[in-house]
């Protein structure tokens, strides 16, 4: 039993109980209007403050990670996107990193096989991360149907693509698949379970996992689980739910009667995630754009990176030193660059 994930689990379960209890005693206004507004406010201001704080911090050294051959002689092949030398290559490198998580793809695992050390491609973290992030993005974009009226065509298109597979299970006792199954929701749930299990099961990963790793995973699990539950199993009155969300974004908050408690639990989880976001590791959303190991040019051989912390240092060059002490140096028999006579003649000419 690991304290770190138990603490996170208890925290998420506690949040669930808070929302559930709050709604049962009639605090729909608090959980449906006040907390979501506060959460969005905390998210937006916290996010901006965090990024502006980062923008103020200096980058004293050029510390790009080099993943390949730097630009050198023309007959040595330059790894353009692993060791970018131009702005264009840098943008390509950043785009590949942000959109395809290229550095996770490089992950290798050391293994001793038959007394020989070998490196194997370890791809599952990359696959899980890619599935998780893109499924989550799709889920978030899809949710704009609850915040727009009329729903933009692009959101409708996304919904159509997402519900492309028609999975229907029909038994008199058990039915699943109507309304249409969104693949992204199921992929999100599966990926978040994989990423959480990975941290719990693999000993080396468990050792470096903290409560701040488990908490967001479990919270997102809670969000995905309640969302899937209320779409396919314990259905809620979706139009009442949209009335509430539309009320929020049009600043005419209303709390229609008859929305199940599971909706408020879902909304509370999302609010907690939003409020927690700017103060957690989830800020890698902005951080990935700002990490100096990725977004700096690996051109330290051709350009000098000037430390912005540099202030004008008062220097005393050797020339000035010799000028000051030449006579004493000659007296003491120390070698000088300009002999005494030469410097005297030079002074006379001037």
């Amino acid at each position, binding site marked *: 039993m690991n304290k770190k994930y138990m603490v996170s689990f208890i925290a998420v379960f506690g949040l669930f109980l808070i929302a559930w209890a709050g709604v049962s005693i009639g605090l729909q206004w608090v959980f449906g209007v006040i907390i979501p507004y506060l959460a969005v406010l905390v998210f937006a201001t916290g*996010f901006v403050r965090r990024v502006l704080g980062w923008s103020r911090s200096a980058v004293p050294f050029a510390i790009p990670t080099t993943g390949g051959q730097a630009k050198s002689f023309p007959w040595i092949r330059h790894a353009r996107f692993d060791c970018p030398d131009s702005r264009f290559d840098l943008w390509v490198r950043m785009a590949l990193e942000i959109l395809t998580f290229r550095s996770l793809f490089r992950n290798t695992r050391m293994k001793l096989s038959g007394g020989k050390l070998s490196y194997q491609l370890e791809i599952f973290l990359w696959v899980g991360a890619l599935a998780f992030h893109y499924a989550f993005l799709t889920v978030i974009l899809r949710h704009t149907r609850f915040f727009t009226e009329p729903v933009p065509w692009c959101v409708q298109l996304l919904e159509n693509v997402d519900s492309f597979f028609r999975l229907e299970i029909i038994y008199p006792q058990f039915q699943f698949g109507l309304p249409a199954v969104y693949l992204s929701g199921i992929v999100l749930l599966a990926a978040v379970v994989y990423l959480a299990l990975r941290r719990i099961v693999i000993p080396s990963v468990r050792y470096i996992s903290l409560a701040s790793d488990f908490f967001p995973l479990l919270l997102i699990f809670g969000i995905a689980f309640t969302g899937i539950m209320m779409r396919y199993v314990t259905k809620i009155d979706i139009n009442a739910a*949209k*009335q509430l969300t539309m009320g929020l974004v049009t600043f005419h908050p209303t709390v229609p009667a008859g929305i199940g408690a599971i909706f408020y639990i879902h909304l509370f989880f999302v609010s907690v995630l939003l409020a927690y976001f700017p103060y957690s590791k989830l800020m890698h959303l*902005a951080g990935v754009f*700002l990490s100096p190991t990725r977004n700096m040019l690996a051109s330290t051989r051709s350009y000098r990176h000037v430390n912005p912390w540099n202030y004008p240092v008062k220097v005393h060059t050797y020339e000035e030193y010799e000028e000051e002490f030449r006579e004493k140096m000659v007296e003491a028999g120390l070698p000088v660059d300009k002999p005494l006579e030469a410097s005297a003649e030079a002074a006379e000419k001037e």
Partner: protein
Amino acid sequence: MNDKKLIVTGLVIFLIIVLFPFWYNRGRAVPPPEVKLTEQAKAAKECVLSKDYMRSEHMQLLDLWRESVVREADRIYTNPKGKQFVMSLSNTCLDCHSNKADFCDKCHNYASVRPYCWDCHIDNPKENS
């Protein structure tokens, strides 16, 4: 510094995207959809099952009906009150709710749901039962 301009630009773009629902709706009030019942539906008072159940689960019921008619050739549905209905979207459901535009579509459009029922039904001639 040059980077600062870039960061602030990125931040502004991010905020515009994230706060999209707020400026898209620009604070105007969006009334919830009002479903109109036909005289026949008003007179019947209750649907096949209770109103709350129908509101959230009608798609499951229609799915079961389709299964029953198409696969098992059983066309008669008996509700818990013992009342019998012919399982047919066109002949039973749309007989009472003949105003698709004011009944079905109102909520479906609001929730952005495009059920595939209408791929075949409604515009076609009535089924021969």
